[in-house]
């Protein structure tokens, strides 16, 4: 990746997390501190090195996006982060993801939605490409099963994944999540080109 691309992606991450912080504060009714997210393009096969082991239990929100930029977006929370979020939001601690229940699932989906939407808007704004998200789906399971299943929505994707690593802190509790954008074949170049064009016109 050349430095320009790295900078642009980083900027997408910054704008996205800024939007997300505002929306989350409203949703959670509390101040949310965010740190600068790390945005990068990584080869598909290296995804696990960045976000955890194949058998690690995680919760994930998944959605398909269409429009000028199409692909599959996955937002992954570690089990620890989910337990923190749920106990804060619902005021009742749970011991494991298996006890999450319908309410917890909805809450988590909403948080995943807010974060995902914020980053997608940032990408759309920076690139001037239209992105239309579909309805999100939810699951918790082994990371390996989730990733390999998500990739199969199309079976046709780029070898590089956009990874945005985020950290949110609320009242000292740190919640980490990773956004993964699997691009449909042929769309990554158009994104990078659009981002370059926008950058040069600034």
């Amino acid at each position, binding site marked *: 990746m050349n430095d320009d691309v790295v900078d642009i992606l980083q900027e997408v991450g910054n704008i996205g997390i800024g939007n997300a912080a505002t929306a989350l504060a409203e949703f959670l009714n509390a101040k949310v501190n965010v740190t600068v997210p790390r945005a990068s393009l990584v080869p598909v096969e290296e995804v696990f090195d960045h976000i955890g082991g*194949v*058998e690690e*239990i995680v919760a994930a929100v*998944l*959605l*398909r996006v*269409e429009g000028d930029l199409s692909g599959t977006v996955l937002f992954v929370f570690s089990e620890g982060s989910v337990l923190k979020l749920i106990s804060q939001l619902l005021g009742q601690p749970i011991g494991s993801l*298996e006890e999450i229940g319908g309410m917890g699932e909805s809450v988590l989906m909403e948080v995943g939605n807010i974060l995902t939407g914020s980053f997608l808007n940032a990408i759309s704004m920076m690139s001037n490409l239209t992105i239309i998200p*579909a*309805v*999100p*789906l*939810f*699951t*918790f*399971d*082994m*990371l*390996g*099963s*989730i*990733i*390999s*299943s*998500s*990739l*199969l*929505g199309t*079976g*046709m994707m780029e070898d590089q994944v956009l990874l945005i690593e985020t950290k949110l802190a609320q009242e000292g509790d740190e919640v980490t999540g990773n956004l993964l954008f699997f691009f449909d*074949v042929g769309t990554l170049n158009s994104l990078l080109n659009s981002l370059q064009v926008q950058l040069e016109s600034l």
Partner: protein
Amino acid sequence: MQEVAKAVIPSGTPEVQVGIADWKVGKEPVILITLGLGSCVGITLYDPVHKIGGLVHVMLPRMADFSKGSGKPAKFADTGIPLLLEEVLRLGANRRLLEAKMAGGAQMFTGADNKFRFDIGERNVEVAREVLRNLGIKVVAEDVGGNRGRTMVLDTATGRVMIKTLGSQIKEI
């Protein structure tokens, strides 16, 4: 992963990991393990007399349906299973003695997105069964479908296959 094996397999047994879209074969006492079968399907072939086994972790049903077939035959049921057969035979298995077991093919996500139907798990299972039938290999056990991921372990010493699923006890198929 190790806990799956430890439950029934002597410690110190050599373990071979099978990655996604990957295959491995082995002789007693090796155990073959694959993690993270979601909509993917794991297929084992085992010769109980010579104690030779193989495991392939396929992601998609047919290579021809995905023109960008990345040249990895183990990625697809219709190319991965014949490849695995060839390799266990090369290791000395007798084709007439081979038995198959399969696990995976789950539908992982809950939600209401009609544009994003994940019936890929189901199709993986169907095609895998069909390929095995055409090769004349009997499927003696299955643990397929549902909505949870699985870890699959084949013990070449016994031919036992153990399945670990989130939130359930380890079970043998």
